[in-house]
């Protein structure tokens, strides 16, 4: 039975949610998470403890190799075999799939695969369909809304590989909107993105968090922090600093996260 359950995918079977959010639970809670990649001996994550509340917009900051992507992959279940606990709205991370959506790093997506923008956005609805079900009118409407919100209606029938980096990222965020998740994970969404798209992405994220969704964005771009985030978590295999952006954005923290010496007497 368990095996059959694993073969199936998608959200809840009936009209009611199988795993309603536990009252007063965090949108995301990681407790002492440790992880080693198979056939490696070094911990990529070494005791990460972190919690995100509904309505929060959190930046996950750190250099390449700090474990940002790995942490996001653990949350969606892309990597398994970690120690510690990860909970989403009070349940083990992978129990209710429709709550978590990811915009993965650009390099993990096969942009040349022959799919249209509309088809990609529709894959955001798949979690509500599962095997055998075809998209219904409601799904079509949700997709149309998402395309309109991200201002890509006129691109709907184009092949995604033909678009610019910024347009592609709009498509991915549109998919997340169609997914209608409560916890959004965005892995380096600002790479190769034009300013207009960046502003649209943040504007959309701000609206979503105002509606009570939780958003975690991984980035190595320190510039966007001060403007767009309420909270920053500096990560380098463990949490180095966590708090309001203006509090944690100190030269000491940045130096520690990015692994260089901080000299007090350095005068720029």
């Amino acid at each position, binding site marked *: 039975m368990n095996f059959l359950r*694993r*073969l*199936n*995918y*998608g959200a809840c079977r009936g009209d009611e949610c199988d795993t309603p959010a536990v009252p007063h639970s965090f949108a995301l809670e990681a407790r002492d998470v440790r992880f080693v*990649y*198979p*056939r490696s001996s070094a911990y990529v994550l070494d005791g990460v403890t972190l919690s995100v509340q509904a309505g929060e917009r959190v930046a996950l900051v750190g250099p390449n190799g700090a474990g940002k992507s790995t942490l996001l*992959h653990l949350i*969606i*279940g*892309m990597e398994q075999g970690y120690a510690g606990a990860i909970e989403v709205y009070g349940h083990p991370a*992978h129990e209710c*799939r*429709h709550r*978590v*959506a*990811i915009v*993965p790093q650009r390099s*993990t*997506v*096969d942009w*040349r*695969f*022959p*799919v*249209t923008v509309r*088809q*990609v956005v529709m*894959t955001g609805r*798949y*979690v509500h*369909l599962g*095997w*055998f079900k*075809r998209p219904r009118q409601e799904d079509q409407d949700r997709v149309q809304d998402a395309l309109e919100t991200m201002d890509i209606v006129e691109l709907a029938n184009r*092949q*995604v*590989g*033909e678009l610019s980096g910024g347009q592609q990222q709009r498509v991915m965020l549109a*998919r997340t909107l169609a*997914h209608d998740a409560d916890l959004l994970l965005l892995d380096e969404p600002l790479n190769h993105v034009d300013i207009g798209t960046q502003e649209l992405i943040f504007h959309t994220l701000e609206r979503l968090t105002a509606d009570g969704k939780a958003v975690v964005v991984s980035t190595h771009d320190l510039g966007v922090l001060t403007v767009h985030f309420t909270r920053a978590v500096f990560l380098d295999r463990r949490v180095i600093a966590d708090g309001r952006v203006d509090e944690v954005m100190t030269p000491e923290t940045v130096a520690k996260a990015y692994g260089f010496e901080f000299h007090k007497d350095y005068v720029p």
Partner: protein
Amino acid sequence: MIEFLLEPLGYGFVIRGLAAGLLASISCALLSAFVVWRGMAFVGDALSHAILPGIVVAYIFGFSLFFGALGAAAVAVLAIGLISGRRRLKEDTAIGIVFSGLFALGVLMMSRVTTYQDLGHILFGNILGVSRSDLVLMLAVVIVTIVALTISHKEILVASFDPAHSVAIGLSPTLVRYILLFLLALTTVVAIQTVGVILVLSLLVTPAAAASMVSNRLRTIISLSVVMSLVATVFGFYVSYYSDVASGPAIALTLTSFFVVAFVSSRIRESRRRVGEEARSNAPA
């Protein structure tokens, strides 16, 4: 002209051969788009070679070559998964090991039990040696392929385009991969009868490659692949009948020429478009 077309069809074994060729080309063409766009060409090639020992074992013990071949394909798929799993070795390395090992074993076994003429039939296909029960099996494989792709096309699409999203919604990309490998194994096994081990790849790769020069819609690519494969099979079949050449190479070369035409015409279109764009941007406002 009509006589020219009808003459070969006077013989039952020839009609069966043509039907077999058409069925094999349908199931190969249906998978072709996924083989091309998921980069499964090498594993397709490997499967077609790795089933040789299964065929020989079936020949020795006198059971259906189809199930012998399918068994060997299953061994190959599992061995590749096992060797490349958990990041031990890269997948193409695993495919190379299993492919060459099983094929070598097949050739060795074959050289002990049969003549090299039989080997020739397996390597290059023997479209005129198809029995009635072979045809039934082939029809079953075509139906299984159509049903499986109809049920799972949206899952294949999402797992191919974005594995991370696929995992996030609980759909295992590995499961999707194995569904495709299973269909690939079934299809390869039936196609070997008509085009042989060496040229199965042409039915699996060339149609969608040619179609992708013309369109970038998955649905169009699949439909065009099927049409091109059917045309190539019929054409290759007649060439083979009248010029007394093997059917496999005749079909494969027809497909190759389709690709060349599609490739050249897409390059011409592209350069025309570029010239048009330059002319527009240079035009005075």
